[in-house]
């Protein structure tokens, strides 16, 4: 009886194979074990040996045809032996032919992994990648057996977060099309950096804003401007809060550049008022409004957000009194403004209704200790409770 020659299974992932060439012609004599044909999977070429001695009775699948594993390729047997009826045509398989794109074969694995294995991605790496909007399967793996690890994801996040080196002249248009994911990625990366690297402590106190409110009457000033001015003045007096831990040294800044956190629909930006300690209240007001308008319109340029040495953030509009702002790395401190609300206050031993405002100061405890930070915050309070002093400060430039 004729012996069947089948398409061999050359690996766990092999579903089909291609006949490269027949090494014998139909009718040619073959000895058992003699090379009969070459077949190919997507990885290897394999020589089929004759399963029995005799002649190659019939070739069913010609060279270059692709059939499923197990499909009959031909028969070997005694000369003249009948061959079972087999549909000579190979089973139709999607094979590469001109004009028809080949089906996606299992592509060469991007990293060393065995046949049929999923890419090795650690659960932590997968979670982090998802949080940062990255596809972990596209990342190179440096862990054991080529697995993608936390380190690989964080490296990719850092790479993505690099700002473009050069801004094209078409900046405003690009700014408007800035994808949400890029900003979120930057925020995520910077906040993670802040949270992981800086031991941060938050202190809170309440400020009686009666005098500040009185001072603002008839002037084109917002509470933000007074806070900005008070912070700038206090930073000059407490330079250790106007600092950053860079590598292994504390850098105390000579400039007082105060960033203002501005919420956007899809994130947060921090334009910077440069040299805030040298600006009059009126000038602070003008610059602050200009920067916030630009931020809201999405027209900030990189330069507007660079070189901050301290940050002020404000959640008062939503009724928050106190919160724990997170440091804007590498800055050593950030001031959170809370809601100013008419509240019960003890004034000269009597219960009075006063506009009180909560301030929350977060500082990097590697750079500054609790007591100086508390004194800094107390100084801001005293400046706000006597705003005339702030105006009097209005230094070199005059008011």
């Amino acid at each position, binding site marked *: 009886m004729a012996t069947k020659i089948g398409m061999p299974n050359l690996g766990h992932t092999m579903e089909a194979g291609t006949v490269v060439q027949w090494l014998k012609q139909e009718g040619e004599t073959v000895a058992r074990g003699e090379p009969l044909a070459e077949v190919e999977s997507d990885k290897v070429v394999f020589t089929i040996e004759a399963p029995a001695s005799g002649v190659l009775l019939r070739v069913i699948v010609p060279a270059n045809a692709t059939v499923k594993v197990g499909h009959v390729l031909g028969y070997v047997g005694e000369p003249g032996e009948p061959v079972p009826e087999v549909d000579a045509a190979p089973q139709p398989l999607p094979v590469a032919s001109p004009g028809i794109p080949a089906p996606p074969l299992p592509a060469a694995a991007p990293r060393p992994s065995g046949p049929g294995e999923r890419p090795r991605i*650690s*659960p*932590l*790496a*997968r*979670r982090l990648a998802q949080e940062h909007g990255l596809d972990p399967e596209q990342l190179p793996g440096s*862990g*054991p057996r080529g697995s993608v*690890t*936390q380190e690989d994801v964080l490296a990719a996040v850092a790479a993505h977060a690099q700002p473009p080196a050069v801004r094209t002249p078409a900046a405003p248009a690009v700014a408007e099309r800035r994808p949400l994911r890029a900003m979120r990625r930057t925020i995520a990366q910077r906040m993670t950096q802040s949270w992981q690297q800086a031991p941060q402590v938050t202190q809170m106190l309440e400020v009686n804003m009666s005098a500040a409110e009185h001072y603002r009457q008839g002037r084109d000033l917002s509470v933000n401007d007074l806070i900005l001015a008070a912070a700038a003045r206090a930073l000059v007096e407490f330079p250790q809060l106007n600092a950053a831990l860079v590598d292994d040294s504390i850098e105390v800044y000579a400039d007082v550049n105060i960033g203002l956190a501005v919420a956007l629909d899809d994130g947060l930006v921090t334009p910077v008022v440069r040299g805030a300690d040298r600006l009059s209240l009126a000038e602070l007001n003008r610059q602050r409004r200009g920067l916030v308008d630009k931020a809201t319109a999405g027209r900030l340029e990189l330069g507007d957000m660079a070189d901050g040495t301290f940050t002020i953030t404000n959640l008062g509009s939503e009724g928050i009194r106190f919160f724990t702002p997170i440091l804007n790395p590498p800055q050593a401190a950030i001031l959170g403004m809370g809601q100013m609300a008419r509240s019960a206050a003890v004034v000269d031993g009597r219960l009075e209704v006063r506009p009180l405002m909560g301030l929350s100061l977060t500082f990097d405890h590697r750079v500054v200790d609790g007591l100086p930070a508390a004194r800094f915050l107390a100084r801001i309070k005293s400046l706000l409770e006597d705003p005339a002093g702030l105006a009097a400060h209005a230094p070199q430039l005059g008011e």
Partner: protein
Amino acid sequence: MMATPMPAGVQMETRRITFRDAVREALQEEMQRDPTIFVIGECVELRSAWRTTRDLSVLFPGRVRDTPISESAIVGAAVGAAMLGMRPVAEIMVGDFVTTCMDELVNQAGKARYMFGGQIDLPLVVRIPTGLAKNAAAQHSQTLESWFMHAPGLLVAAPSTPYDCKGMLKAALRGRDPVLFFEYKMLYALQGDVPADDYTVPLGVADVKRAGRDVTVLCWGSVVHKALAAAVALEADGVSVEVLDLRSLVPLDTPAIQRSVERTHRAVVVEEACRPASAGADIAAWIAEHVFYSLDAPIKRLAAPPVPKPFSTPLEQAVVPQTDDIVRAVRELL
């Protein structure tokens, strides 16, 4: 063996004692304090096999009782005494034979409070000298903690230092529950510092024996010292290993496990017991279930293969995880 330091932060006058002294001192101090405590076992009275009960029969006449060679009788008597208000300390001289008291422990001791509607406590301590010794062979070398982890109502402790041993044994002797107290025989000679004053170490609280950044090695009993040696070896390569000594297996300090693995993102669970259905298996499963998204590498397990513990010294060494095995396992995760 090296002496083990006291936990960081313990500031008091200390003495250096052996692990076996820790057992004896805990028994002596608690027997002094509580007249309901008595010791029962084989060779505990006249000639203490492990010298853990030495001189106690002189100090406390009638409260240290030798028995015939019948572990089920020892534990059965102890369970009954505990039900009636005594605090027995039963010693299973060769821990492997605790298998003969499974009914007394699993079906009686562990369930008594539940089945009698909370009317009784079972303040019983069963001391189980355990683990590989030198050429003690297949019936005298096993570690069977996991068998009792599976039985509700039993507490399982396995300290690694004289400090932990003394403090945990004293805590066990002040509790309301049956405690299986596994003493790794190879630790009996280990020296370590203990406070001069009275103290206890609560059951169910793990201890970071060495803090590290990159990998957590979870272990208990004698393996802790192999893990510490591995951590020292790996430190030379800049690999920072945290050694988390679980100390108790029931209750298991899962918050400590979570804290550590969430920080290191990698876990190696090491034990002397046979691998299938072991304590380590349960711990590894807990990590996989609860800390999965913090794992940066597969959980690694080191345990003995499921074979009888051999008599031959080289095979004895080969069959349980050694320091080099821990070093290798940690490296494979990085």
